[in-house]
């Protein structure tokens, strides 16, 4: 893995509906690293993930986001995606009129600017769906329409594996999943590590998804600030004692 800085967030302040949610976040992710962001509900974890991906609802009022040395603070979400950032949504949106398969192909074609060879694409898609335990029929169903919560999350990981971004932000991908689905998602993340070798920011408040995974750094986010940082042992600490210890009373 290269030691170059991939993502550098500096002094990031973010408003949602004119209310400041993040009060100055610093976060630095190197190529190939796995970072975990934990914190109580309403701490601003999803806000951070969405702000990095460029969601228009999240207004950056101060600070910068640099990706591979380029200032992307003002870039539109599609340009960030093309630069290599991927956000796995907490609540994936249903889009009628385009099938999951066609959507992924369209995204790939947009990204590479080249026509995708259908046969190669289909084979890779089928293999990846099998890995994720998805029924092949989902490929020809409209994007997320009528998918169960679990299938929606798997479809997010499927897109991650097909689009192969340099940085994946997983926004509570594990929430609402049963134990088998969490295992499947973990398997998908492992596959992403093995084949793409990209960096990960895993936003979660449960830790089952991290079982058996190397974690380079853990950040505890509370009230819009990073209140603690450490290595994997911090996760065990949180599991034992909860978040209260980090929050100023």
């Amino acid at each position, binding site marked *: 893995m290269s030691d170059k800085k991939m993502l550098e967030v500096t002094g990031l302040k973010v408003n949602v509906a004119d209310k400041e949610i993040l009060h100055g976040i610093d976060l630095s992710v190197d190529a190939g690293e796995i970072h975990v962001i934990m914190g109580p509900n309403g701490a601003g974890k999803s806000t951070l993930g969405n702000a990095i991906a*460029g*969601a228009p*609802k999240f207004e950056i009022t101060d600070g910068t986001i640099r990706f591979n040395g380029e200032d992307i603070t*003002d870039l539109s979400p599609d340009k960030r995606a093309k630069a290599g950032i991927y956000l796995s949504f907490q609540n994936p*949106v249903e889009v009628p*009129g385009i099938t999951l398969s066609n959507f992924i192909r369209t995204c790939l074609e947009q990204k590479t600017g080249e026509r995708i060879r259908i046969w190669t694409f289909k084979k890779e898609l089928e293999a990846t769906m099998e890995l994720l335990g998805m029924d092949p029929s989902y490929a020809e169903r409209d994007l997320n329409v009528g998918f169960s919560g679990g299938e929606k999350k798997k479809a997010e990981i499927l897109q991650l594996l097909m689009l192969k971004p340099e940085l994946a932000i997983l926004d509570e991908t594990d929430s609402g999943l049963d134990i088998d689905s969490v295992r499947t998602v973990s398997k998908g993340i492992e596959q992403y590590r093995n084949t793409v070798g990209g960096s990960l920011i895993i936003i979660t408040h449960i830790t089952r998804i991290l079982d058996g995974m190397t974690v380079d750094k853990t950040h505890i986010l509370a009230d819009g600030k990073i209140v603690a940082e450490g290595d994997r042992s911090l996760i065990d600490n949180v599991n034992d004692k909860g978040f209260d210890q980090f929050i100023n009373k």
Partner: protein
Amino acid sequence: MKEKTHVDDINRSIYDFRFDEDDFYKVDSGLTPEIVMQISEEKGDPEWMKEFRLKSLEIFNRIPMTKAGPSIEGLNMDNIVTYVRPNTKMHADWDEVPEEIKETFERLGIPQAERESLAGVGAQYDSELVYHNIREDVAAQGVIYTDIESALHGPYADMIREHFMKLIPPTDHKFAALHGAVWSGGSFVYVPKGVSVEIPLQSYFRLNAPGAGQFEHTLIIVDEGAYLHFIEGCSAPKYNIANLHAGAVELFVGKNAKIRYSTIENWSKNMYNLNTKRAIVEEGGTIEWVSGSFGSHVSYLYPMSILNGKGAKSEFTGVTFAGKDQDLDTGCKVLMNAPDTTSYVNTRSISKDGGINTFRSSVVVTEKAKGAKSAVSCQSLMVDNISRSDTIPVMDIRCADCDIGHEATIGRISDDTVFYLMSRGLSEEEAKALIVSGFADNVSKELPLEYAVEMNNLIRLEMVGVIG
């Protein structure tokens, strides 16, 4: 998102082109009995048709201007050249069609569309049919597909006289009267008892000369137990002088017969499209309308189904796209006049860049319609804050024993959906085009593949400005 993407007005020049009409024969502007006589003579009308035209003109001059929909003040009847005829006669062979007319058609993609699998093409250039062809096996089934002018003198003359403008009488409204006086060109189709035409018949309409109106008449009679899919596609070049289209479509669906009538209209944006379409359905018969309206400056378009026999069915599926300077008043009418009749209406409308969409529906259930079922669903999508969408559903129920439902939604493109798609690398326009195509999916999946592709191209053209 700080970086906003500006969506340019689309470049319609892809569809807006024309050739000079130098050699073409024109009648004087303005409408007098002399002009109507001249048209009648040129066409070699039988006596009854000449009288019909003159009577229609009288009605036209007597009844007031239609005022139901959007303003048509931009229309100056004195300025409308009602009849332009290309200087060519009917051609059965594509090779004999004049080169520049062929070129116009080729730019519209007509020869490509006319593949082996397609039954026949009646292509209309200005007011006259210049090309007519029907596949031999369809003709061998006894199916008649011709222009009305020829049919008026052939073995089906009586059949035409019996049906012509009986569903849409000249007294119906001002433009029906105008149509009765100056109609020209169009198609006549007769499908005999029990014959199922497996491949769609197609017809293309197009306006070319400046200020020329187009008044084509489509008369289709599908006999007992027979089936026909008829496709009408329209697009016209752009001009500054107001253009008028006041065609008429009359469909007669026999007992247990079925007609599917599909249209994609893409008139240029100075067109007044005041078209009238009507079907009457006998016992156990079915009419299916599939309608995509994209072009024109002002449209009044409400295909009507008269369900006149027990168990008759009507299905209407429509999509209307109103962009800048477009005021499109579309919808449908259903008259349920027999027991156990059913009608379904399913429409989508999209407005963008200040475009105005009005959905208008009328469902009338008479005392005779015991056990009737009707469901109306219309959904509207506004792409921005300057566009407009209205829904005007009317229901007149005079029967207690029936099941009637209506639902309407008006929505905007959700920011969350746009962000979701953009986060995967699609541009804002691509994302919105995808959402709009998905929204109009109800119609595109009802269309044959090449038309579905054309419709999606039109949506992309409107939304992104290029054909992908």
